[in-house]
Structure formats: structure tokens, C-alpha cells
């Protein structure tokens, strides 16, 4: 069972790595930010699987911390990139 948990963690990390190759390169900043989102979800999944397999204690709190902060990169980007003078047409404002 331990091997199964580790192997699935490996497969998830591999898919994350393949995804990173695709989106870190862009073309747009939106794609790049998805990299932060991808590693957030996949990294937490791999983290939980590895800790279940190796028996490291207290790892749930690490995953909890990462989950809390998963949207921060996107939030910071939107905050600093939104031009003040151009309202979003989708807002109807």
C-alpha cells in the first residue's frame, strides 16, 4: 500500500511537471498564474500522499497552510494589474 501511495504521488507530481512546462511558458500572464494554481492543487495532493506513506507527523497542518494561501498569487496579480481607468465590460459598471 505504501508503494501505491508513493507511486500515485509520483504520477501526480509528473502530471504537474508536464503542466508546468506548458503553462509557465505562457503565452499570457493568465497562463503563468495557472502554474501557481496547478502546483497548489497537485502539490497538496502529493504532499498528503507522501505523508500518508512515510508517516511524517503534522503534515496536515502544512497542507492546510498551503490550501489557505493557494489563491494568494492570483489575488496579488489581479490587485496590482487592474488598470484603474478601464472598467471591465463584463461588470456592467
Amino acid at each position: 500500500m505504501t508503494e501505491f501511495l508513493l507511486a500515485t504521488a509520483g504520477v501526480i507530481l509528473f502530471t504537474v511537471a508536464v503542466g508546468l512546462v506548458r503553462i509557465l511558458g505562457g503565452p499570457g500572464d493568465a497562463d503563468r498564474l495557472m502554474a501557481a494554481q496547478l502546483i497548489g492543487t497537485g502539490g497538496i495532493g502529493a504532499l498528503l500522499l507522501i505523508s500518508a506513506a512515510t508517516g511524517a507527523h503534522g503534515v496536515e497542518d502544512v497542507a492546510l497552510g498551503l490550501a489557505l494561501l493557494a489563491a494568494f498569487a492570483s489575488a496579488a496579480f489581479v490587485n496590482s494589474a487592474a488598470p484603474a481607468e478601464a472598467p471591465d465590460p463584463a461588470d456592467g459598471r
Partner: protein
Amino acid sequence: MSLVVDLFSIVAIGAGVFFFLAGTVGLLRFPDPLSRLHALTKADNLGLGLVVLGLLPRSESLLAALKLVAIWALVQLAGATAAQLVGRAARRKGTAL
């Protein structure tokens, strides 16, 4: 009993890995940022949810199990809002239109 638990974990985590794979395939294949965002935030969140489901019966205590569920819920929230925020930013820039 432990065989049943193991089997449950294997099925759930295996399904979770499948959705992670599906999300990455979507990232690779979809043509524009908005649909890539869709693939990423939907498939991967479902994948993590199934992984969490598979790990639940293996957790040491009730608190640890509750934390696992909370982790998934928080990632759902982060995925949903980040998809909205990034999608809107992409759209504002006109890359998707």
C-alpha cells in the same frame, strides 16, 4: 477490514490521479486561456477531492480527517476564486476574445 479500506483507498486515489491527468491533458490541448483555466480548476480539484476521500479512512484521528476535508474545501474555494480572478484578468486584456 483493512483489505476493504485498502481497496477503497486504491479505487478513490486511482480515480483522483485520473482527474489530475485529465486536467493536465486539458492544459496541453485546450486552445485558449479560459478553457485551460476551466480544465485546471475543475479537474484538479476533483482529483484532489478523490485523493482526500481515499486518504480519509487512513487518517489517525477524527481531527486529522476533518483537516483533510477542510484542506479540500479550501482548495475548492481557492480554485473557484482564482479561476474567476485570472479569467477576468485574461478577458480584460483581450487575450480570450
